[in-house]
């Protein structure tokens, strides 16, 4: 009895040694900053970290009167609400045509993943050049059929659409890979019955495939949503938030306010707390909705 207790105690110590490195890293670089974020958001503090003073709710009050915060919220929502469904829908359609494990389909699956291997920075540079209205390939091809292409990136009407298009172009392979992997796990016997009934490919996809991979689609929706809400790279490279802040998302605004123009860390922090709360609420709602739906099914 005594001996087993001793072994258990020794095992406990070893276990703590095993988790120690990770716990130190997570504590110093995740937990401490996370708590600090809320504190900093209530301080007056700039990038040079002199003259720090307590501001209380001042930063938050300022935030609600800041038109750029509302504008950035709106842009982030527009971006997310269009980008996420388009990316998932595109992945689903392509998956529908890729149900066979033929050489062609295997090759295509890998091909669609290639843009995702490249950084968003590189992809954004690539598309900025292709879409350039003075020397870009597309402008030339359009001109040949009589269309004069405007400068998309500096057009308030088109800039956001272009950013969404480029984001989908790079990321759809990611969603596609997850969804195809899930469809390959569906037991073939489910399709056999449908084959006997003479169901078409589309019907089989809607009535068998989609219900079987619902969980995976839900997972993709949540992860893509979180990523979309944090969109920054493509905006930084392609438009810098312009024209007229038309493509400025919350993260672009936080970066701009904290590190580029005003160096106002306290205020930028309060906007990031605001972003965090929105993401948390929407994520929880989405998860609830998804799991609620499953219960209904069962």
């Amino acid at each position, binding site marked *: 009895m005594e001996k087993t207790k001793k072994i258990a105690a020794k095992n406990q110590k070893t276990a703590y040694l095993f988790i120690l490195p990770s716990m130190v890293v997570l504590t*110093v670089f*995740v*937990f401490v900053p996370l708590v600090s974020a809320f504190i900093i958001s209530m301080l007056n503090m700039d990038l040079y970290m002199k003259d720090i003073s307590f501001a209380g709710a001042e930063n938050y009050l300022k935030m609600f009167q800041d038109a750029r915060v509302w504008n950035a919220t709106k842009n982030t929502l527009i971006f997310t609400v269009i980008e996420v469904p388009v990316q998932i829908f595109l992945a689903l359609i392509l998956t529908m045509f890729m149900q066979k494990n033929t050489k062609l389909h295997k090759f*295509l699956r890998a091909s669609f993943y290639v843009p995702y291997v490249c950084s968003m920075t590189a992809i954004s540079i690539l598309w900025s050049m292709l879409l350039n209205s003075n020397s870009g390939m597309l402008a030339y091809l359009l001109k040949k059929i009589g269309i004069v292409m405007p400068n998309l990136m500096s057009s308030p009407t088109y800039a956001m659409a272009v950013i969404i298009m480029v984001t989908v172009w790079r990321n759809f392979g990611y969603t596609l890979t997850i969804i195809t992997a899930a469809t390959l796990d569906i037991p073939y016997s489910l399709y056999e019955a449908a084959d006997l009934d003479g169901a078409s490919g589309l019907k089989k996809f809607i009535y068998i495939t989609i219900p079987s991979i619902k969980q995976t689609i839900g997972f993709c929706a949540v992860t893509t949503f979180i990523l979309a809400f944090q969109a920054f790279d493509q905006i930084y*490279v392609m438009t810098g938030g312009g024209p007229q802040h038309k493509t400025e998302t919350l993260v672009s605004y936080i970066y701009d306010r904290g590190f580029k123009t005003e160096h106002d860390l306290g205020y930028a922090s309060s906007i990031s707390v605001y972003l965090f709360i929105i993401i948390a609420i929407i994520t929880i709602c989405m998860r609830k909705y998804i799991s609620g739906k499953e219960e209904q099914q069962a």
Partner: protein
Amino acid sequence: MREKRKGKIFGVTGNIILCIVALLVFIPLVWLIVSSFKTDADVIKWPPAFLPKEWVTAQYEYVVNAIPILSMLKNTVVFAGSVTVISLLFDSLAAYAFARMEFRGKKVLFTIILLTMMVPFQIIMIPLYIEEYKLGILDTLLGLILPRASGAYGIYMLTSFFSRIPKSLEEAARIDGLNNFQIYRKIVMPLSKPALISLGIYHFMNNWNDLLYPMMLSSSVENRTLSAGLAVLVGSNSIKYGPTLAATVISICPLLLLFLFGQRFFIEGIATSGVKE
């Protein structure tokens, strides 16, 4: 009979659509690569031509000489490489304890770690900047590596992988007198190679491609990674068209080559993440 024909039409239409999408994916990438071998005049020529009139490496020579692209490349390799190796080590050690050992507070700690997966980087970005400044590691490679030396996703993925390794193997080893660390090193780690490689590639790719994190934590040109350096150069309009093309190719080439040879691991790393949950 009619159904069969219908199925065939469905398949053919599908393949045509798939091939069109594949072209839309490949043409821009091929354009990028071939254009990086154009001359300055060729790059901005109107009407533009897809292929270079003559193939030159002038843009690459310019980039290597005029921009610290090689030091950026080195930084990116050191940053992404170190993060990958160190986080695999730390995460696997922690995962071993969570999957294979009993200790007080295990459940609570694991739940807290899982919850950090919900924390977006943007909320800790400003405190992290201040913290690194106070620790004196702001704008150093060490400052880029340390915060990423362990992560919730890695611990979570490896814990679930380690728990699936049969207990019987471990019991046999214990009878042979192996302690926990030896079991971790000689049994669990070798058996988990595929999971470790997939996770490693996932880390390597994400860190290689990351922009906001390295851009914020490194201000000097000497410590910039490729994507941060490139984004700043393009953002400040301080680089011409041709060199931008060459620099972009340099930044994506290493990962593309890695993908060509280790595709399976790239895809497995993320494909498995969606199936669970």
